[in-house]
């Protein structure tokens, strides 16, 4: 079997190495020399070839067994501590891999003119993006807890440099540090749990050289107290990553200070590791603890939904606003995951994809807008009446906004309704009430999207903004696939649901059935 995932992981690494070669040389902005100006095209080429590889992976993926982990490989990595290089994706993982792979070329294209002309700087930038891509693909494929953890932490570093070194806000360094400190803080707490997991697994008779394989760990009965502690360790890390109230504080700062492209990769893809981790690690590894914590988690998730939406309404900075909307959406995703119903879980899985498309579109469009402002202002108040000046930009922004508020007909709606309906019938006590409590989130979403649209695009054009250029061809090429994807998946969600249904069924069965032996075998199955 062709190791599709390994290739998908390796190829961007090759790209990063090729493009990054010489990036560490001294910065110069002088006259053109050999190889100048190649960084961006080369990186784009690499990311497009990666898309082609992704198509191959999709072709090789057996959708009739979407709940199994496929396309992977397993090699011993550090047998002394039980770590293996084990990759494999089920449908959910594959979709997230696809999201990562698809967004990267768009982000590169969107950022085409963002980082100036300094070739060395550009090389660093695109190399970091490609490196991040490799890490993201890998983390969504990891089937070994240790490998997952390593990637979970390691990918913070390129992200950190992308925020701090290539951001556009004045507070980017602070934001980068805040991002890293929050993430590492959570990650290190998770590290304690990872270590404990290993010893419990070995104690339970798992082969020590493979003790981090998810498929082995699923079968281990950890004991109630230990399981709950470890659940907390993992969950806190994922909640910070997700991000969930009250450990969300880093996100608005990052959104406000990173470039929109970076924010897209970070919030639309990288943060999914949090929810993905909850779905594929917390739930299967700690089923009892998940059930135990679910009422609390659901409450926090719903609070996140409302909190993020309210904060979004109150923002004056466009990019921070988009960041806050994500807090709200991640709340929905987490809500769906902890309903333990096939519907809610499938909805959350689908939503992870959709949020990436919708918020990505919103971030990038907002970025196009900001890049047009003479002072690159991110303040909403700096704009007015632009619909008549830049109609296509306004339309794109509106569509992205409508996707964010989950307008029926767009993919986001399908997933949101699945989550809400699923949560209403959720297994944990009180989930119906919390589902109802989350519904006002849809009203708040309408307020923050339309209020922003109203302020920026309606009324009389602000002075100095009445001759802004409309979306360029390059920018339209960036927006088009995202919008098209949202529409197509909204009308034919089955295209994606095929991939998430079976994993969701298995997860829900695993968590709600009393005798989990068979379900465990299914959960952990690797092909």
């Amino acid at each position, binding site marked *: 079997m062709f190791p599709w995932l390994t290739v998908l992981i390796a190829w961007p690494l090759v790209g990063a190495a090729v493009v990054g070669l010489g990036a560490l040389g*001294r910065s110069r902005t002088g006259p053109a020399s050999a190889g100048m100006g190649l960084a961006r095209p080369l990186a784009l080429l690499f990311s497009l070839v990666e898309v082609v590889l992704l198509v191959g992976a999709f072709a090789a993926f057996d959708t009739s067994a979407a709940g199994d982990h496929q396309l992977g490989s397993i090699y011993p990595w550090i*047998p002394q501590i039980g770590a293996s290089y084990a990759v494999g994706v089920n449908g959910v993982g594959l979709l997230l891999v696809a999201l990562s792979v698809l967004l990267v070329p768009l982000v590169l294209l969107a950022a085409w003119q963002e980082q100036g002309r300094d070739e060395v700087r550009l090389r660093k930038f695109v190399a970091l993006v490609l490196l991040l891509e490799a890490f993201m693909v890998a983390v969504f494929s990891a089937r070994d807890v240790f490998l997952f953890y*390593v990637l979970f932490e390691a990918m913070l570093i390129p992200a950190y*440099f992308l925020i701090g*070194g290539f951001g556009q806000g004045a507070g*980017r360094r602070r934001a980068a540090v805040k991002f890293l400190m929050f993430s590492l803080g959570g990650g*290190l707490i998770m*590290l304690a749990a990872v270590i404990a997991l290993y*010893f419990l697994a070995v104690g339970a008779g798992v082969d020590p050289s493979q003790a981090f394989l998810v498929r082995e760990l699923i079968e281990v009965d950890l004991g109630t107290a230990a399981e709950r502690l470890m659940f907390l360790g993992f969950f806190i890390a994922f909640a910070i990553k997700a991000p969930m109230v009250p450990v969300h504080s880093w996100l608005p700062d990052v959104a406000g200070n990173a470039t929109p492209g970076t924010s897209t990769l970070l919030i639309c893809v990288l943060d999914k590791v949090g929810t993905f981790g909850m779905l594929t690690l917390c739930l299967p590894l700690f089923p009892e603890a998940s059930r135990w914590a679910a009422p609390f988690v659901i409450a926090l998730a719903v609070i996140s939904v409302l909190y993020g939406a309210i904060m979004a309404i109150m923002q004056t900075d466009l990019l921070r606003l988009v960041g806050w909307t994500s807090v709200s959406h991640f709340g929905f995703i987490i809500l769906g995951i902890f309903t333990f119903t096939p519907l809610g879980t499938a909805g959350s899985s689908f939503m992870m994809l959709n949020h990436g498309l919708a918020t990505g579109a919103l971030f990038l469009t907002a970025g196009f807008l900001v890049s047009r402002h003479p002072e690159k202002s991110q303040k909403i108040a700096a704009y007015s009446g632009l619909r008549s000046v830049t109609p296509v930009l306004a339309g794109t922004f509106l569509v992205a906004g409508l996707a964010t508020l989950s307008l029926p007909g767009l993919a986001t709606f399908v997933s949101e309704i699945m989550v809400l309906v699923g949560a209403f019938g959720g297994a944990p006590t009180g989930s119906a009430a919390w589902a109802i409590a989350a519904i006002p989130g849809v009203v708040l979403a309408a307020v923050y999207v339309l209020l922003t649209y109203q302020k920026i695009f309606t009324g009389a054009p602000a002075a100095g903004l009445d001759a802004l250029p409309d979306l360029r061809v390059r920018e339209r090429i960036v927006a088009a696939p995202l919008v098209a994807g949202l529409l197509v998946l909204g009308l034919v969600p089955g295209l994606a649901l095929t991939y998430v249904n079976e994993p969701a069924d298995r997860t829900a069965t695993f968590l709600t059935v009393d005798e989990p032996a068979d379900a465990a075998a299914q959960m952990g199955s690797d092909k």
Partner: protein
Amino acid sequence: MTEFVAPEIDWLALAPLIVVLGAGVVGVLVEAFVPAKARRVTQIVLTLAALAGGFGFIAVLWPQIVAQPVQVVGGSVTLTPFALGAQGIIAVLAFLGVLVVADRTSTGQDSFAPTASAVPGTSYEDLARRSGLEQTEIYPLLLFAAGGMMLFASTDDLIVMFIALEVLSLPLYVLCATARRRRLLSQEAAAKYFLLGAFASALFIFGVALIYGFAGTVRLIGTPDKPGVIGVIQSGTAPLAGMSVLLVAGVLLVTVGLLFKVGAVPFHAWTPDVYTGAPTPITGFMAACTKVAAVAALVEVLYRISIGVQAVDPEIMRQLQIVIVVVAVLTMAVGTVIGSVQTDVKRLLAYSSIAHAGFLLVGVAGFNPQVQSSTLFYLLAYGIATIGAFGVVTLVRERRITPGSGEDNGPVGDDGVVLGEATEIAQWAGLGRKAPWLTGAFALFLLSMAGIPLTAGFIAKFGAFSGAVSGGLWWLAVLGVLASVVAVAFYLRLLVVMVFQRAQDEPETSQVEPVETGGSTTGGGSTSEGATATLTKTQVTTAQRVVVTVVRSRGPAAVAIAVCAIATVILGVFPSPVLDLVEQASKFVP
């Protein structure tokens, strides 16, 4: 009279020590007989060859020792795989450290005073510098220290351990005092190190005396026919078996002596001062190698004693564990918390070294034999990152630009005189632009120390915390994790300054004191204004300014830094082969 029986000595087992210490003796002879011009090269070659040879013997010995540990002359040298592993790590790290020491950089000067005994600022010192004197004695001293460390980690006999302690310490005291610049600081560091070191040695040896009083022997395991401390405790044949207070106090004092060398709180106070004041290459060598030797010795002593007492009196065992746990917690807390407010790179690395001592102790506190392998790995990972980091520090310098002045001391470049190291964190701003590769390497070392995955430091930290968890001290691991978060914060601060901030290379008159720390003594011996407090501030010329520059390595330091960087990555990504080795090292309980 019994007939004299010549002891049977396994010379091969002693070979690494003999090579290194013997080379040190030869080095002393070299000082006496080799002409001055050739001395430096000879010494460097000799030193590197000795360390490489020592390592070669260790490699040869390895399979044999792994199969069966060896006791030489009744345990005076006891080669377990663990001890031999520690020896190997010390040899490797010392080799890299010597490379940094040997580098004269593009300034043509090494980091050492031409005549360390000369009073700073005197004409004699000036003369010595002008005549191009060099202090090549540092190389034999380094060899003696390295040999002492290797012995320190591989003996069963507490008196031998004491002697090894002195053999490793005394050269280091001297080396600390030999900095070319900022000589007052250097001498102060040496004095503090010496006084506190001697104090700690006294505590150690008194502890040994008490143990001797209790058990009638100073060997821990001893030989079958002459059981050591453990043996007499287990068999209950200790002469003063009733006075276990002697044993407890003795073990406590011995442990304190070792913890001093490890740099654990509350015996850490010398660390920041000495690390800051010593010549930077020596700091790197000392920070890396001493830590290995001290931790290895600590592990051996503690684990051996714990085996002995566990059977008899679990209480004592618990006491020991509590001591280590308390010390570990304090060490992590102090190292990280005080480290987070430091403004000097060397001092920051010193506190980082304290914090790492804490993390190491977290693993040690698990009292699980498996921990030995992870401890060795930790020491290796920490050591290479430390030597690399201090190696980078040696290359980041201040440069004083005095337009039109005919400064004749030190090589005059196109744009000024290169002074001492720029160790203020603020001065490192914009380093990423000036020297991307060097900054990249330094960032890598910082990330490794911070324990970020895909660097050696992560695997190491993973192992240390695993040790605590396997010993049932999961809460200690959690504390360690929290301390790591704080530690990450200060590494990150340095990283932010280097990579993201712009250099403040605006013209700066020398009225602004170039360096904060010991500002009155900067300049050291290299400039004519001297280094004494009374002299510095008289030189006020409006056009002078000090910028930060990166000098080029003449090779050795660059090699060392590159090797350290590559090793950091390889140990982070593919640690398996090395883990295999260190795993063999824990095969036998010491």
